[in-house]
């Protein structure tokens, strides 16, 4: 299953994603430069974390208009698997490939630490290897991870099981204390309406080997492979 990792000017988690796919998932993977207009041949595309365009104007606001994003949009429209991680999630929101927006953390602090997230939907193409309600230990590193959407959108997400991950404590309780950034309903990751596009603030690609502190990211990235292969 061929993976592509898009590189925008300022992306800095592209290599982590590349190595996670190549060395841990053992799948073919290539970088896709943001000016490329051809994404044919890929089964899954990753929009990685970082500070594309310096986060100028708004995080992801400029990257969403990179030439590659037209091809990425078409890829997603045809059902291709697309996952946006951290800055990638911000770009997906700006491009309206998933709904809502990511605004500055309510604490105004850049939060860089391991968090626990609860798998709210374990039947998606990004979580099929997870048990219902499974708690994953995955790091976050962001200043603008506060998920916001209007009440209609929130209802649509909740009613249609499109919330993928929620911040929780080690036991899986979804509490205010466990919410690192003020996100509505502790939302850490969501799906689009078709279920082929996922956006998440935590970095599964940074938690793929025990030596890194956690290998729980494999539950998410490995699910993509599992579903693609089936």
């Amino acid at each position, binding site marked *: 299953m061929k993976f592509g990792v898009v590189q925008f000017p300022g992306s800095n988690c592209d290599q982590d994603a590349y190595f996670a796919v190549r060395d841990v998932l053992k799948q073919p993977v290539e970088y896709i430069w943001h000016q490329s207009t051809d994404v044919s041949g890929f089964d899954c595309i990753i929009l990685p974390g970082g500070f594309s365009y310096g986060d100028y*104007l708004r995080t992801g606001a400029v990257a969403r208009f990179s030439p590659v994003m037209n091809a990425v949009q078409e890829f997603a429209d045809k059902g291709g698997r697309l996952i946006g991680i951290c800055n990638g999630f911000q770009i997906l929101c*700006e491009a309206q490939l998933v709904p809502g*927006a990511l*605004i*500055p953390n*309510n*604490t*105004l602090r850049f939060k860089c630490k391991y968090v626990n997230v609860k798998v709210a939907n374990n039947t998606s193409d990004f979580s099929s290897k997870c048990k219902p309600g499974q708690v994953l230990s995955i790091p976050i590193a962001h200043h603008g991870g506060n998920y916001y959407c*209007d009440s209609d959108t929130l209802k649509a997400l909740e009613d249609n099981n499109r919330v993928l991950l929620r911040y929780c404590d080690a036991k899986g309780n979804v509490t205010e204390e466990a919410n690192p950034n003020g996100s509505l309903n502790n939302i850490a990751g969501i799906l689009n309406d078709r279920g082929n596009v996922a956006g998440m603030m935590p970095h599964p690609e940074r938690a793929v080997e025990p030596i890194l502190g956690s290998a729980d990211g494999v539950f998410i990235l490995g699910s993509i492979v599992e579903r693609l292969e089936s």
Partner: protein
Amino acid sequence: MAKVNVYVTLKPSLLDAQGKVVQGALENLGYSTIESVRMGKFIEIELAENGVALEQAIDEMCRKLLANPNIENYRFEIAE
């Protein structure tokens, strides 16, 4: 030649954490009657020509890039 001033503000329903911090800082300076502070963006655009469709073009710029309609309001004035 046209000069346009664009003002982008956070929608009132959203928490403006930065504004709150600035309010606290002003209060620390002794300004005790401040009820709220909200922060936005001010963008100055100069264009080579002032055409008939200028307002429409600026509006499009705002909707597509300069503001995120999910979370921000915008307004603009053509200065000259």
